């Protein structure tokens, strides 16, 4: 429990630092925020007036406290580009991101873990080599390229799936697979090696000496042990998926947090960029936190009774 409390405090500290870092990161990257709002025909005087109203001429630390003050009072503000309410955008785009992320996350583990188990059980056979070659290839193919190729093949050439858009199930297929590809490949390897490590352990021999079937030894005991590294990998996966989602969402026109964040950063739409990147950091940190929890729950050696 102390471990858990420690992780929670740690998470909160990370979040606090993140809010500062994100704020400074986006401000320091330059760019005229008023360009997002004003048409090209706006004069310098127009721009200056807007900067004044938006508080962009204040010192950054002051802007930070103003911003955090509003944030903590529940006022997320609205987009500089188009006045959209950030609270509404987060719900709308967050939902889409969660759908895509969850689909990819499930794919990673529902495909990766069984394949990794299969490879480990069929160690050094053709099946194993086939799966592992695929996994090496899966890790070598950059997801943005995979995205383009899959759109080209499945949408343009074959016409089987929609190339982009949101949020019907068939529109989810390609982006989810692309987003999951690398993680799946990594999970296959991870699962296989965790399974093998445990398959070679002494206690497997004990179980076999007790007359237990291979299915039971592998499916229950070895798998349960292999699950520990897989669970801690899951936390990292969440972070990776959140990161990769930025590009995948843009290519597939999937209106998620990542797409909005990229656009907001490029346009220096500060309120949106700040809040959305905070949301992403929270997702990553929470992901790790949940993985810690899962790790704790799955590993009796860490439990105190």
């Amino acid at each position: 429990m102390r471990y858990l409390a420690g992780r929670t405090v740690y998470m909160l500290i990370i979040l606090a630092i993140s809010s500062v870092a994100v704020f400074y990161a986006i401000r320091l990257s330059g760019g005229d925020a008023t360009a997002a709002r004003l048409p090209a025909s706006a004069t310098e005087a127009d721009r200056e007036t807007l900067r004044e109203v938006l508080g962009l001429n204040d010192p950054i630390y002051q802007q930070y406290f103003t911003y955090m003050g509003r944030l903590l009072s529940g006022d997320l503000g609205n987009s500089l580009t188009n006045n959209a309410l950030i609270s509404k955008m987060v719900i709308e785009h967050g939902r889409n991101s969660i759908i895509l992320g969850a689909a990819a996350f499930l794919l990673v583990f529902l495909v990766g873990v069984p394949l990794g188990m299969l490879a480990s059980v069929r160690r050094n056979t053709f099946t194993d080599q086939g799966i592992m070659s695929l996994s090496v290839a899966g890790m070598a193919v950059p997801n943005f390229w995979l995205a383009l190729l899959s759109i080209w093949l499945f949408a343009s050439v074959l016409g089987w799936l929609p190339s982009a858009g949101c949020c019907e199930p068939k529109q989810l297929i390609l982006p989810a697979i692309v987003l999951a590809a690398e993680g799946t490949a990594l999970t296959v390897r991870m699962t296989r090696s965790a399974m093998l490590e445990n398959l070679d352990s002494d206690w497997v021999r004990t179980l076999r000496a007790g007359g237990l079937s291979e299915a039971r030894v592998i499916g229950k005991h070895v798998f349960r042990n292999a699950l520990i590294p897989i669970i801690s990998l899951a936390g990292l996966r969440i972070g990776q998926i959140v990161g990769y989602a930025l590009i995948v969402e843009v290519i597939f026109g999937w209106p998620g947090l990542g797409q909005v964040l990229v656009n907001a950063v490029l346009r220096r739409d500060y309120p949106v960029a700040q809040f959305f990147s905070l949301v992403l950091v929270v997702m990553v940190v929470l992901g790790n936190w949940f993985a810690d929890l899962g790790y704790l729950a799955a590993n009796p050696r860490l439990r105190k009774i």
Partner: protein
Amino acid sequence: MASPLLSVRDLTTVIRTEGIEFEVVRGVSFDMYPNEILGLVGESGCGKTMTALSVMGLIPAPAARIAGGTVLFGDRDLVSLSERDMREVRGDDISMIFQDPLTSLDPMFRIGHLLTEVIRRHRPVSRSQAEAMALQALAEVELPDPETRMSQYPHQLSGGMRQRVMIAMALMLDPDILIADEPTTALDVTVQAQILDRLLGQQRRRGMSMLLITHDLGVVAAVADRVAVMYSGEIVEQAPVTQLFSDPQHPYTQGLLRAVPQTRHQRGALHTIPGRVPPPQFVPPGCPFSPRCSQALARCWEEHPDLVPENGRRLRCFNPQPLTPA
């Protein structure tokens, strides 16, 4: 003498590494009788454990396989038994205790679960009946506070307690044969005697046949009825325990005995056997012990001696010499 419970004949096990096959157990034969302890001794890497695992059908496939020989258990040849039938035998008719109790229990499950799972595998009993059996088995090996232990994880138990759990697991289904692979090596000296004591008590009480694998000649001398000495995958000498210790014939057996620290001879350097056990990939062509043997003849380097029976003893040596005091 009664007919043997288990009869091993010409058992040969090979391992494949980096594309090359080599024998780790080479034509091993021995019999096991009820209510008897057979000691199997030898240096590390001489094939003792492999022999035991071959009998259990637990050699690590596909890297290893049994290349020949038979293991007759009653009228069944365990070598040619299907994996499914073999599973019925394992843990029920023949069980095994392993060397390292610290790593030999699945860390993710409670003790009770591990025990009942094996019981329910072999006996059509309910969960609570199985738990009662497990509890009794734990009590029989005198594990303190067995109820609590049942709900604990292996990492919460000491090494000695874990070995008792292993013993309970091996004995709870009343096997005919128990294979104990260095059951005390990994334990503290004070615990070793206790564990051995429990094990022996159980063996005598149940009238089991037990294969005790060890490199500790003191233990063998104390508990075994017969002793087989293995070197480089082969049995080089086998005799009743008193005969072997009083009159060892094989130079290797003699070397082993001389290497045991004698409390009587406190002074003087310990005796050692020069050289090392040859790796199984690289066994000398003649007698495998010849490179380390002080009394080797030219013939020993060229020819492989057979295991020759001779008044209750079996010996594999061209040039046996009486034991000379160190």
